[in-house]
């Protein structure tokens, strides 16, 4: 049997600070199959961006992957050398970020920047590289590609700059695209253009995508499956249709109620009282216990395992409400307290939280 495209198992990414570890990502597992679009959704500080950056291999100091594995086609990314990672990132895995202009070099034309990527990762000669640039820009809906390739990043609007970044991400025909809030900085009508474009490209090129967002509407429109993150934990994981239709975890249920929709006519917003826990001082039991309407004794003692709430483990929820259902063997429950980490001191380490918006 071929392994899934991406398999993350028991991943923990902590930020070491003088006051102890900030557990931005704490024992998370997920599986991404070929051609699948998986959304990771959560509020700011939930760890979704750190999770994505861990997979990208770009966690910033003092953050560190302290446990778990990230396998791409069966090869563990956490065990790879920098050179191997660079090779893989250019050819097989690419990134799209929230702020396109922050990831383009203002001093070079966009054509130069895309041809650089092609030069580093393909055998195309110079003429072919430029042909490929024009083809890509045209495919991304940028009018007059041959002229626009000569433009600098600041000459593009936000939506057009994101098209350029997507062109660059697709330049070497990757299999996996990791996208961090790719439409969140854009206005609604421009966001709709980019969502349409990404959805079309994903299907035409059979791309697999890991798409991080805080926007439930975007997940509903773009993703096949989803993981809901809260306080460093993916608390529920399943197909988008199933999770939206019948959320199993109390946090998912609460979050879905809270999202303001322009079709909702109730006089007031639904709320989740309280605020998320301190990632430096997570409770020993369930991370959602303080705000959960269904909290029980068991929730206070030990982190719940993933219970299978759908067929064949494709839908799981980290909540004792499902006790009696099979637990997912591949994903152990709470990790051992990371004692060595809590002891280690870093000079002047600032609690960075995570690189979220």
């Amino acid at each position, binding site marked *: 049997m071929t392994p899934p495209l991406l398999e993350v198992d028991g991943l923990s990414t902590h930020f070491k600070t003088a006051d102890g570890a900030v557990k931005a990502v704490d024992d998370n597992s997920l599986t991404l199959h070929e051609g699948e679009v998986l959304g990771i959704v959560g*509020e*700011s*500080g939930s760890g979704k961006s750190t999770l994505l950056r861990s997979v990208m291999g770009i966690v910033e100091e003092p953050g560190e992957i302290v446990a778990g594995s990230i396998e791409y086609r069966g090869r563990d990314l956490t065990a790879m050398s920098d050179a191997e990672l660079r090779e893989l990132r250019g050819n097989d895995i690419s990134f799209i970020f929230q702020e396109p202009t922050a990831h383009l070099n203002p001093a070079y034309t966009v054509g130069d920047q895309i041809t650089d990527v092609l030069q580093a990762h393909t055998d195309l000669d110079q003429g072919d590289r430029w042909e490929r640039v024009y083809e890509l820009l045209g495919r991304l809906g940028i009018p007059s590609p041959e002229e626009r390739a000569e433009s600098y990043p600041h000459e593009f*609007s936000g*939506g*057009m700059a994101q098209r350029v970044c997507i062109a660059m991400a697709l330049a070497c025909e990757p299999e996996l695209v990791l996208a961090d809030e790719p439409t969140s900085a854009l*206005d*609604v*009508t*421009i*966001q*709709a*253009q980019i*969502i*349409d474009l990404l959805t079309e490209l994903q299907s035409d090129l059979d791309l697999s995508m890991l798409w991080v967002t*805080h*926007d*439930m*509407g*975007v*997940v*509903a*429109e773009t993703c096949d499956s989803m993981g809901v993150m809260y306080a460093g934990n993916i608390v529920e994981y399943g197909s*988008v*249709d199933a999770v*939206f*239709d019948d959320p199993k975890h109390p946090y998912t249920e*609460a*979050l*879905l109620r*809270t*999202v*303001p*929709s*322009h*079709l*909702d*006519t*109730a*006089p*007031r*917003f*639904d*709320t*989740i*009282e309280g*605020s998320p826990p301190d990632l430096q001082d997570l409770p020993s039991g369930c991370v959602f216990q303080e705000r959960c309407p269904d909290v029980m004794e068991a929730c206070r003692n030990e982190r719940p395992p993933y219970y299978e709430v759908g067929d064949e483990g494709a839908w799981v929820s980290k909540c004792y409400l499902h006790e009696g259902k099979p637990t997912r063997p591949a994903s152990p429950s709470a990790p051992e307290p990371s004692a060595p980490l809590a002891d280690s001191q870093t000079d002047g380490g600032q609690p960075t939280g995570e690189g979220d918006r």
Partner: protein
Amino acid sequence: MTLLDVDGLAKHFAVDSGFLSGLLGETRQLKAVDGIDFSVEEGEAFTLVGESGCGKSTAVLSALRHQQPTAGTVSFKGRDIGDYTKRELRGEAQLIYQDQQDTLNPKMSVGEAIAEAIRFHDIVPDDQVDERVDELLERVGISPAEKYQEPSAFSGGQKQRIAIARALAVEPSLLVADEPVSGLDVSVQAQILNRLMDLQEEFGLGLIYVTHNLGIARKISDTIGVMYLGRIVEYGDVDDIFEDPQHPYTQALLSANPVPDPSVDRDRIVLEGNMPDPIDVDDTGCPFAPRCPEATSECETAEMGLEPFEGDEDHLVDCIHR
């Protein structure tokens, strides 16, 4: 009673267009707001909704004389707004911004910031100020025991609550909120907006809300104005507009807004291109025509203006095809 009545409001900015055109005496105008009308009654919640750069913030700031408008008349409680002193106007209309970092003095405790506003506007005798501060903080869900803290001790959501308390402290008749929760997470947003709606209803305040978030606009508003390129293109009751939008831009905007429900199958209208720069806009015809799926040659030359839709004086649309 009508609190604010805005008629033909415009705010243009002169744009430095370079050395040569400077020599030739040409100045270009950025028409951030280009002739809009709206009014807000006592107790009414009116929302200006639109995408970034449409002029919604500039519209309220120039209506309330935080910026000098280029043209138009604005009256407040029936009196020309230009006749109000700054102090009088601040006592009547209070603003809450997106980022309270810029408006709360970092060196002053939040209790003192609220007390200062109460004293400046002579709301209660001096010996009752402390008590009033405590009441206000409680009303917005902050413990009065925390009033001695400086703003840095509070989270973004708490700062926004404090800003609301300070705005209410002067007992205004109109509250203006410009994207007050857009930096906050949905669960925090919901708590603050519910509180804001409760207080607005309880005190019978007029509210002008400015946002790009259609989900928030739906809940918070009685009436809305949809802005595009410095103009209000559709105006009326929020439910009428959200359920049966008439202007092609409103239709596209609502259809493109992602809905958090995968079982809702919608026909999205995806507009091409961007909203153009307000500098390059042609004065004649409809400013939306270049992106409009229904545009005809008449749209380029037509005389534009909000007109009742099918005779309904409460639902106005600026489109010659309606």
